[in-house]
C-alpha cells in the first residue's frame, strides 16, 4: 500500500468501514510510514473530539409543535367525515325502532362500530392538536386573567355553553385565562390552567366526541388526555402534566362542576 491509497483508506479504517484485509494493510503501512501514522492518530483524535463535543442539535419546542401541527389532518376533512356519518347513525336508530330493514341495520351497526372508534380518535387527535397549537407563542389565551369572574362572562356569546370556570389556585392549579378554540370546526371553550410549568387546556363543549362516564384516560403523542361527560357537557383535559396530577385536576374540576350547569 502506498501513501495515496492509505490517505483515503485510513478514514474508512477509523470509521470502521474497512474489511479486515484492507484494515491490516493500512495499519501495516502506518507502521513503516510516520507521515500516515501521524495522520491516522490525529484524525482519530479529531473524530473523538467531535464525538465528545455533542454537535447534535435538539429541535426547538416551537419547531416540534409546528411540524406536529402540520401533520395533523385539517378540521375540514374530519367534518366531511362526520357530516357523512351523522345522518347514517340517526337513520340507524330510527330503523331499529320501527323494526324494519333489520339486516341493513345490522350491516350499518357493524360499520358504525368501526367508524365511531375512528371518529372518536379523530376528535381526540384534534383536541391534542388544539392543545399543541395553543402552546405556540401568543396562542394560549384570548382573555388572560386569573379572575374566574372575568373569564366566565367572556365566553358569553362566543360559545353556546357556559363553561364552568373554577378557581383552583388553592390546590396549586393556577387559572391563566380562557380561549375560543375550534374543534371539528365547532367553537369550543378552552379554559387554561397551569401547574408549575405545565399548561392544562380544559376543553368544554356540548358535543365533543362520545359521552364518557366515568373518565377515560389515554396518552396521545406524549400528552395525557382525560375526557368525561358531566352535567350535559363534554370535558377534555390535555396536558404534559404527569398522569396522576392530571387525574387530581380532573377530580377537582368534576367535584366543583354544578350537577346541571349545561347549555345556556
Amino acid at each position, binding site marked *: 500500500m502506498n501513501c495515496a491509497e492509505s490517505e483515503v483508506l485510513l478514514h474508512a479504517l477509523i470509521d470502521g468501514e474497512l474489511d479486515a484485509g484492507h484494515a491490516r494493510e493500512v495499519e501495516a503501512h502506518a507502521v513503516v510510514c510516520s*507521515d500516515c501514522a501521524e495522520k491516522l492518530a*490525529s484524525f482519530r483524535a479529531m473524530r473523538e473530539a467531535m464525538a465528545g463535543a455533542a454537535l447534535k*442539535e435538539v429541535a426547538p419546542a416551537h419547531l416540534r409543535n409546528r411540524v406536529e401541527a402540520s401533520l395533523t389532518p385539517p378540521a375540514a376533512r374530519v367534518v366531511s367525515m362526520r357530516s357523512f356519518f351523522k345522518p347514517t347513525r340517526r337513520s340507524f336508530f330510527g330503523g331499529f325502532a320501527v323494526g324494519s330493514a333489520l339486516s341493513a341495520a345490522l350491516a350499518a351497526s357493524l360499520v358504525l362500530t368501526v367508524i365511531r372508534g375512528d371518529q372518536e380518535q379523530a376528535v381526540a387527535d384534534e383536541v391534542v392538536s388544539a392543545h399543541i397549537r395553543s402552546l405556540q407563542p401568543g396562542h394560549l389565551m384570548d382573555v388572560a386573567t386569573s379572575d374566574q369572574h372575568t373569564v366566565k362572562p367572556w365566553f358569553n356569546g362566543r360559545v353556546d355553553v357556559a363553561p364552568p370556570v373554577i378557581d383552583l389556585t388553592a390546590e396549586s392549579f393556577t387559572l391563566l385565562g380562557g380561549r375560543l378554540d375550534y374543534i371539528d370546526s365547532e367553537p369550543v371553550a378552552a379554559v387554561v390552567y397551569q401547574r408549575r410549568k405545565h399548561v392544562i387546556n380544559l376543553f368544554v363543549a356540548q358535543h365533543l366526541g362520545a359521552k364518557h362516564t366515568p373518565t377515560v384516560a389515554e396518552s396521545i403523542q406524549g400528552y395525557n388526555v382525560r375526557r368525561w361527560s358531566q352535567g350535559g357537557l363534554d370535558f377534555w383535559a390535555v396536558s404534559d402534566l404527569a398522569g396522576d396530577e392530571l387525574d387530581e385536576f380532573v377530580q377537582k374540576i368534576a367535584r366543583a362542576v354544578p350537577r346541571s350547569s349545561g347549555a345556556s
Partner: protein
Amino acid sequence: MANDAVTEQARMRRFRDAALPHLDEVYTLARYLMRNTSDAEDAVQECYLRALRHFDSYRGPAMKPWLLTILRNVCNAEFARRGRGEVPTDYVQDELVAEEMPMWQEPQASPEKVILQQQDRATIRRLVEELPEPFREAIVLREVNDLSYKEIAEVAGVPVGTVMSRLARARAMLRSAWNTAETATARPGSAAASGIAL
C-alpha cells in the same frame, strides 16, 4: 369519501410515528446546511411536508437516511431558488474546490504538528460550518448524523468511492482549519500546555 378521510388519518398517524422521532437529526443537518436557525426550521417543516406527500412510495430500508435525503433536496432547492452566494451541493465540482483550497497538502510531520489542539464545542461547530460543500455535508452526515458510508452515498446521490474521497478531504480541511484556529486563539507559550499530546 369517509373512508378516504379515515385512511388518510391512519396514514398520517403512521407517518408521524415513523418520522417524528428523527426530528432532531433532521434539524441538525438543516442547521449545518442552511447555517442559520430560521432557514433551518423552514427547511425542516418543508421536509416533513414533502416526506408525508411521498410516504406512500417510501419502501425503506431506513427512515432516517430517507428523511435526510429529502431535507438535503429541500435545502438545495432553496439555494437554487435564491441563486446567490451559496452554491448548491450538486453543482460543486469536487476537484475544482480541491484546487481552490490547497489544504490537501498536508503539513510535514514534526513533533509539534502531532498535537491536536483542544477546541470547545462552539469552535468545532464553527469550523464544521465553515467547510465548503459538499465536504461539510459529508462530514456532518458521518460525524453528527452517524450514517454509514453506504447511507451517505444514498443521501448525497453519489458512489461510495466519492463519499470516501469527500470525507478524506473534509477531514484534511477540518484538521488544517482546526490547527489554524489553535494558533489564532492560543496565547503564546500556552499552546503546548492546553494541547492534547498524541
